[in-house]
């Protein structure tokens, strides 16, 4: 693991041997698959968002591609429920060195808290709360600083491990929400969840996704994610985990320079597991070429540029 040294990052006291973390909702149900992802270079994995009870989500089409490495989904938080999912968490946790983050949600703050607590008991190293899925009810939490505060506080009280709060980009001012989460006790922020979007079929005149509106992920949203991380990192002092449209090591670096301390990978898994190793190896090469000891030295560097303008 010596090779990985420059890529070690520490977030809220958790040690990741790679800054690459699996994003929630991507492949995140099968324990052996999570272990394989670690072998390919993920330092952590986030499970599918798990709720208090089993939930079927939305019918198909629920995930489609739009071309240009961009995707639209409305899975609708389909999940087996925390009760039945607990033993999968315990299984996932068996991989040494892999940080296991369980994403949770619920109908109210009690649900969130109870689910989080059960997830922790099953072995979660950290809890991520999903208050940001654009096509489900939880979206109404993450757009309001007060409600965000309330939910974060409730979950924080119920658990002992670090709490990550995943933010939605579909807001006027993400900084307000992020600050609110920080004040309520969040140990890190994850930005961003998917961007609300719609695709309509011109022959049947219907939205293509069964649910209608869905969440955009992939390449199209990278500049949006980088912008949000940049703005958040000016305002909060807890670490930020960048997410959205990462497909190569340059994308990872952009997020770090904007202020991220780690990143989550989602849609790029379209290209299979190898892409993780590629990104990891290219990051190491970048750091070596520039004689940098640690990727963490890059966090936030883009804030130090000199503003320029015309003398009007």
């Amino acid at each position, binding site marked *: 693991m010596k090779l990985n040294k420059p890529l070690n990052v520490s977030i809220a006291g958790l040690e990741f041997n790679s800054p690459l973390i699996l994003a929630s*909702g*991507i*492949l*995140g*149900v*099968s*324990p*052996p*698959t999570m272990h*394989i*992802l670690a072998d390919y270079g993920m330092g952590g994995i986030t499970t*599918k968002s798990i709720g208090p009870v*089993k*939930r*079927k*989500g939305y*019918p*198909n*089409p*629920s*995930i*489609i*591609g*739009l*071309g*240009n*490495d*961009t*995707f639209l*989904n409305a*899975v609708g938080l*389909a*999940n*087996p*429920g925390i009760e*039945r*999912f607990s033993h*999968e968490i315990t299984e996932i946790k068996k991989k040494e060195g892999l940080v296991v983050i369980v994403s949770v949600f619920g109908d109210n703050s009690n649900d969130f808290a109870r689910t989080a607590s059960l997830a922790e008991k099953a072995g979660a190293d950290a809890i991520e709360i999903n208050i940001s899925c654009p096509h489900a009810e939880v979206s109404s939490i993450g757009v309001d600083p007060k409600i965000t505060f309330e939910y974060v506080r409730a979950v924080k009280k119920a658990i002992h491990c670090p709490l990550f709060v995943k933010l939605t980009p579909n807001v006027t001012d993400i900084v307000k929400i992020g600050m609110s989460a920080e004040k309520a006790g969040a140990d890190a922020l994850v930005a961003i969840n998917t961007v609300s979007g719609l*695709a309509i*079929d011109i*022959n*049947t005149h*219907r939205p*293509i996704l*069964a649910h209608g509106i869905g969440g955009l992920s992939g390449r199209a949203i990278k500049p949006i994610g980088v912008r949000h991380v940049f703005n958040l990192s000016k305002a909060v002092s807890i670490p930020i985990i960048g997410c959205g449209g990462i497909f190569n090591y340059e994308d990872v670096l952009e997020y770090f320079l904007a202020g991220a301390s780690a990143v989550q990978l*989602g*849609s790029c*898994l*379209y*290209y*299979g*597991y*190898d892409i993780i190793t590629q990104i990891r190896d290219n990051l190491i090469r970048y750091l070596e070429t520039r004689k940098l000891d640690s990727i963490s030295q890059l966090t936030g560097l883009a804030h130090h540029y000199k503003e320029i303008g015309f003398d009007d």
Partner: protein
Amino acid sequence: MTKNEQSITDKPFTTEIKSVVQETPLMKTYYVSFVVQGKIPSVIPGQFILVWIPGIDEIPMAISHVLDNGDIGFTVKDVGEATHALHKMKIGDLIGIRGPYGNGYQLKDGFSIIIGGGIGIASIRLLVQKALQKNPNHLLVIVGAQTAKELLYLEELQEILKPSQMLVCTDDGSHGNEGFVTMILEKNLLHIKEKAGANRITVYACGPEIMLTNLLKVCNTHKLELEASLERFMRCGFGLCGLCVVDPLGIKICQNGPVLNSAVLNELDDFGKFHRDVTGEKYRIDSNHG
């Protein structure tokens, strides 16, 4: 199969049903044009598409026909809500298509035994055509169904295959041999091995998972290579949702499958035992999971 660039074909395009053929009482074949952004995607036998029935569902279907004009066909068994809705659709109705997805069968040199059970015959139809072109002398096709009525493409297969190239069976004996395809295979193995001589024998198969697990046992016993096409519940079709993953190898049926070979199948704890439902929950196939 890992791609280098995202294909625009991941977005369903709607197109009119060009024709419908009633194949058996429960099975119909639908033909649609398959020109995506001006190009005809190339299809490997065993690949599938996701078929969107607007307002209902989107479901995986093996590509069973590829016509010279770029049209494709798929054969649907009426088993539930979406397939039933499809069965009610007529020429001119719009359905959405995306794909082709998956790896398909890798037709190898040597002697090929191609086996289809029930609607699984749809998945092997193109492979039979390809094998006939490649090595007609080293080919045996075995098809089976519960009853004679549900034997898919029977006349067509009898037309293109010589009697010696084809074995038919039904569970109730209403056509061909009585019994399962695995039994027929074992019964004829000695004869096949003689025919194959020094050539490697590969078995290609699609059918109910119970048929495939039994087939794997037979193949293991007799040291035959197996390529079997599996079914799992799917959402994305391109490796993101994880619903179709079979443990413990992290294999995505949509991307690394649906066709898996013996080496992989022998390692799969899930094979013949577990599926994941629409929520991602794993359940035993033989349980009463709903």
